[in-house]
């Protein structure tokens, strides 16, 4: 059991600053998700914690051991699950799970016990004699987790372990993973570009972009109180609507932001609600079963951003007909409005 301390960590590949000064404090037993698009530096950060990549500068502490220098991966007390699972194709499931134990010269009997215990935990005991290629994607993923688990690591490092599963399996695998982590209470760092995974799994989420940390917070904080327009549009599907309303009561050059699910026909709100109303010119309605996405633009705002497409997300519980090509009265509760500086993109408290 150990937390991780990262101090002004940098990794440069020539001119490319893959990780550009990251400070991060991961608590003991925490499930931390590194969220970012490809090239954001999240995987490089994970690989530096693992010891597969050497930092250009900065410090990494795992527990009370400083590891950024010459401490090899095997001495860091970590276990890693790769996106491709990286199972050894020439070894059976049993031999795969046993490999880290063999490497640490564990006695045979103990290896046997440990492998069976881990296989039991992920209910793959009946596959122990099979080869990886005879397993489905979900089964392989569990073998990879088993192989990581038997090392009794202080820290789990997971690099997009669910990315290769199909959408249906991903939900159950996510649930399994979260339950498993709660059960063993080991510090876990999880890399993903999928915000649904990040929201569902993380105790805290670290949003990264171009090698820098943009925001650290619980899923709720990141979703509801994004620190800047990048986080606001990166997290959430569809993204947060941003527009320059030209509202005289706001300071100049201010962007108003609101989530699509808060942007609803005015008639559905109660009379007591403090509303900001918009004239919403509806272009197209997309029926998605549980939701309707309504695409259009807000009339009457002068700034360039006003032409941008605004999306409303109506739950199926709102049966109101929305004819395309007409202008409707839509509204957002004032408590759901967020303001950003048009120039810096940073959050503005008003």
């Amino acid at each position, binding site marked *: 059991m150990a937390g991780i301390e990262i101090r002004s960590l940098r990794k440069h590949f020539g001119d490319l600053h893959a990780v550009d000064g990251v400070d991060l404090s991961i608590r003991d037993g925490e499930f931390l998700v590194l969220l970012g698009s490809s090239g954001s530096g999240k995987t490089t950060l994970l690989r530096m914690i*693992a*010891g*597969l990549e050497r930092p250009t500068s900065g410090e990494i502490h795992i527990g009370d051991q400083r590891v950024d220098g010459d401490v*090899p*991966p*095997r001495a860091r007390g*970590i*276990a*890693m699950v*790769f*996106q*491709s699972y*990286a*199972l*050894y*194709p*020439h070894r059976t499931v049993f031999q795969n799970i046993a*490999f*880290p134990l*063999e*490497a*640490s010269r564990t006695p045979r009997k103990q290896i046997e016990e440990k492998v069976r215990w881990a296989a039991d935990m992920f209910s793959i005991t009946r596959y122990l004699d099979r*080869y990886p*290629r*005879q397993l489905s994607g979900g089964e392989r993923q569990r073998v990879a987790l088993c*192989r990581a688990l038997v*090392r009794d690591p202080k820290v789990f490092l997971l690099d997009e372990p669910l990315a290769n599963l199909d959408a249906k399996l991903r939900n159950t695998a996510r649930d399994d993973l979260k339950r498993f982590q709660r059960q063993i209470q080991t510090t876990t760092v999880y890399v993903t570009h999928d915000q649904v995974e990040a929201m569902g799994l993380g105790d805290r989420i670290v949003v990264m972009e171009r090698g820098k940390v943009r925001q650290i917070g619980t899923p709720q904080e990141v979703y509801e109180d994004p620190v800047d327009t990048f986080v606001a549009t990166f997290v959430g599907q569809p993204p947060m609507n941003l527009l320059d309303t030209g509202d005289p009561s706001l300071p100049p050059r201010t962007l108003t932001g609101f989530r699509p699910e808060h942007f609803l026909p005015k008639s559905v709100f109660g009379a007591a609600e403090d509303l900001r109303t918009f004239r919403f010119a509806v272009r197209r309605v997309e029926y998605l079963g549980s939701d309707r996405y309504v695409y259009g633009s807000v009339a009457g705002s002068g700034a360039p951003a006003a032409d941008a497409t605004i999306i409303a997300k109506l739950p199926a519980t709102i049966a109101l007909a929305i004819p395309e090509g007409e202008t409707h009265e839509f509204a957002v509760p004032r408590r759901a409005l967020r303001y950003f500086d048009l120039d810096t993109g940073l959050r503005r408290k008003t």
Partner: protein
Amino acid sequence: MTSPPPPRRTFADREDLLGAVMLGPALAYVILLVGVPFAFAIALGFSNATAGSLSFGWVGLSNYVAILGDPIFLRALRNSVVVTVGSQVLVVVLATAAAQVFRATFRGKRFARFVLLLPWAVPVSLAAIAWTWIFDSTFSVINWTLKAAGLLHGWLYWLGDPALALLAIIIVQAWRIFPFATVIVLAGLSSIPQEIVEAAIVDGAGFWRRLFRVELPLLLPVVAVAVLFGVVYTATDLGVVYILTGGGPANTTHVLPTLAFQRGILGADLGQGAAIAVFLLPFLIVVAIGMLRLAHRTEVGGAR
């Protein structure tokens, strides 16, 4: 108004015919230059044909009976096996080691790789002549180097002593095949997914464990192919032995191809020469099948 004529199937549309026509030249080449001489050699092995006359008579197995009772043939057979196995063992070890070196990045890597491939590109006869100088009884650079380093006190007559001559042949054969094998192993190494190697590192495996438990097993199909090529090249090679020792001293270093050449062409006994030349064929076929099955089995991953 006339409608355009209905499109007709042209020759280029007829894939069955087109395929046969395009494969024809290659097939003719293989049949005329490989198949016919091969069948001819097998037939000669059962005949009493000689190089000086056109007479041709079937003598059944008597050529084979004669060579199996001949100590020079038995010695050549043994030499063939020793040289082939010895050089291939050397090649596998050297090629695996060299592939590890070439996988790393270092200054001058491209040049080193070019130099590595030279033995493969140099004509056998030319290289063998250079090696006769290296192993020369008076000027051998090996001997002079060892002497200068104080490691050698007597004198090694490389090509004069049967055991040393055989060792010299093994060295040259290994030197000749090794670049090719290195390139094959290197290709095999780069086909191992990086994540598997990294998983082994994180799992705590050191260099040797990674090499013997992860990389080599995954390389096995590729190494099998390299060895198969090496076996065929070495077992059928005439030039190296012919130029280095000429089968001497006293017929002790003959391998089957040189003996077949000596008996069949120089000695004019075509029948016996052919019998010696095709003698190894069944064994080579068995080795080839075994290797290919091994390669295939590991590729499929040991499905039982």
